[in-house]
């Protein structure tokens, strides 16, 4: 055995011991390539989701029906840009490059959450995205505050605080609309009908069909299985829907008295695969927007770079 190989064995042992002890891996620590590239994939996908996720709600920035709602929405969409920036920075601590990750998003070589490929058709969608989509994101993300990778875990603490805030704002909008006119109540129910099932898909494929999950769990970059988190989300959302006065569009939804959990109907995984595969209602539009932002404004970035070089 060569000295270099021996070192690798020691480093692997130290890495394994760090993970086993529940301690954090930091950017300068040795880590297996699989851990590094798995994390880059996960963090980039998360960052892309924040950036693409600005669009469905951002489409209502002009039409927001009160100045207070407009300010809330603009601050929220701005937060999402901030989350994207934190997360790209966390990926950069692993050796990735933001511009390269953006290129991969635009060339569809990396994915983002399939939910953002659905359109937002009424202002109630803004509230439902806050309540259900941000709610599902929180379920997914709170455990990541304990991710084994330090920069990601720390970024997630701030992201989760802001997401929690957004969720409250979304729910408060829906409560207000439910106390408004019949047309507003109908808008809320319609939005719930359209977003409920896609929100369940946000937790990813069922556990028996989730190819990267086992290794991610072992490495501490994923803390709970997709199905566990999905169940937790359903259990939380049902009483909230009742309090709000809307019906979740699932006739099979019922409390199992033995387990204390809600049973729910079968998810349309074919639809999930279709949307994640690029054939949802808005995939092309979402990517085209980011492509235009990059390509049509390339001259701005070139100018800023040239100016910085001239005066550095």
């Amino acid at each position, binding site marked *: 055995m060569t000295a270099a190989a021996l070192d690798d064995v020691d480093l692997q042992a130290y890495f394994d011991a760090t993970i086993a002890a529940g301690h954090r891996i930091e950017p300068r620590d040795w880590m297996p390539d699989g851990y590094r590239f798995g994390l880059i994939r996960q963090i980039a996908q998360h960052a892309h989701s924040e950036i693409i996720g600005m669009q469905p709600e951002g489409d209502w920035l002009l*039409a927001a029906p009160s100045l207070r709602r407009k300010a809330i929405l603009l601050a929220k969409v701005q937060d999402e840009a901030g989350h994207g920036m934190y997360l790209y920075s966390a990926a950069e601590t692993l050796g990735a490059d933001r511009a390269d990750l953006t290129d991969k998003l635009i060339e569809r070589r990396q994915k983002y959450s399939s939910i953002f490929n659905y359109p937002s058709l009424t202002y109630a969608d803004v509230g439902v995205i806050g309540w259900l989509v941000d709610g599902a994101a929180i379920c997914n993300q709170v455990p990541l505050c304990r991710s084994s990778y330090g920069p990601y875990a720390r970024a997630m603490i701030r992201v989760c605080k802001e997401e929690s805030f957004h969720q409250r704002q979304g729910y408060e909008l829906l409560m207000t609309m439910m106390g408004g006119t019949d047309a507003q109540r109908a808008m809320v129910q319609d939005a719930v009908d359209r977003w409920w099932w896609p929100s369940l898909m946000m937790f990813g494929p069922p556990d028996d069909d989730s190819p990267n999950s086992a290794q991610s769990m072992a490495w501490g970059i994923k803390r709970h299985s997709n199905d566990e988190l999905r169940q937790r989300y359903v259990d939380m959302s049902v009483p909230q829907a009742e309090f709000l006065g809307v019906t979740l569009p699932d006739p099979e939804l019922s409390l199992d008295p033995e387990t204390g959990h809600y049973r729910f109907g079968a998810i349309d995984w074919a639809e999930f695969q279709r949307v994640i595969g690029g054939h949802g209602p808005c995939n092309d539009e979402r990517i085209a927007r980011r492509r235009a932002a990059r390509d049509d404004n390339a001259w*701005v970035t070139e100018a800023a770079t040239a100016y*910085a070089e001239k005066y550095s």
Partner: protein
Amino acid sequence: MHEETVYDALDQAHGGEGHWAFGTGFDDPLAGVDTTVPDGVDPADLGTYCLMLGDDALVLAPRLTRWVTRAPELEEEVALANVALDLLGQARLLLARAGSVGVLGRSRTLAGGTIPDEDALAYFRDPDEFRCAALVVAPNGDFAQTLVRLLAAATWRLALFSRLRDSRDPVLAAIAAKGVNELAYHRDHAGRWVLRLGDGTAESHRRAQAGVDAVWPLLADLFTATDVEARLTAAGVAVDPATVRDEVRAVLDEVLTRATLRLPDWPADVAPSGRLGRHGPELPALLGDLQGLARAHPEATW
């Protein structure tokens, strides 16, 4: 953060202001400020003047917001959203002030009773009731033209607000005192971009110059007082727009010169039009986007 607590308070009473982003709570925006109209001031004039300043911000904010999800860098989306949020905050205070002195035009007859004055004014006035200047109404153009326009608008507004801190109307004085810090940042941010673009590459220089050439004619009507402004200036409430011309021109000349851009001829003063409610087709188009949903549901609560 404890996983269990994230959701817990969601369906509890949500009255705590601490839950809300700055400036988006339920508080009366003018709470704690003396809203008495100063002696010798016509409330109709004061309200109209607040609409002029409020509408400039109300209309420029969505122009900037348009760049969110479309900007060259994420950092710039955050920055332009920040500027738009500041302007939106200024607009809300100024429209609320106009409403508080009874200047609501036709809006109050169209808006439902639960709609606050700021929203009645923002959503239920027709274009000819808007008092904004052509400078803020003009479409964005490209990134260079957007930033040149922002530079001009922020420089002009900062010059006005700096002087309005001494207004005899305590509300205007308070709004101006808060606004100057924001506007100084807007001017700085836009000025830095104009430098980078003017003195960056040949392409960015060409675009920045085209932006300047497109924006400069819009400065022509900024410096002539309407009758309302003249009366309020005499009463110590408003600023005579003619008195900020030299400062605005000096700042813009300096930035353009440092950015290696050619200074266009300074436009001759013309009579105000936007301030009197006369606008081109761009304003009705923009207001259609801004107002459509609220107007479709005049009895709704949002």
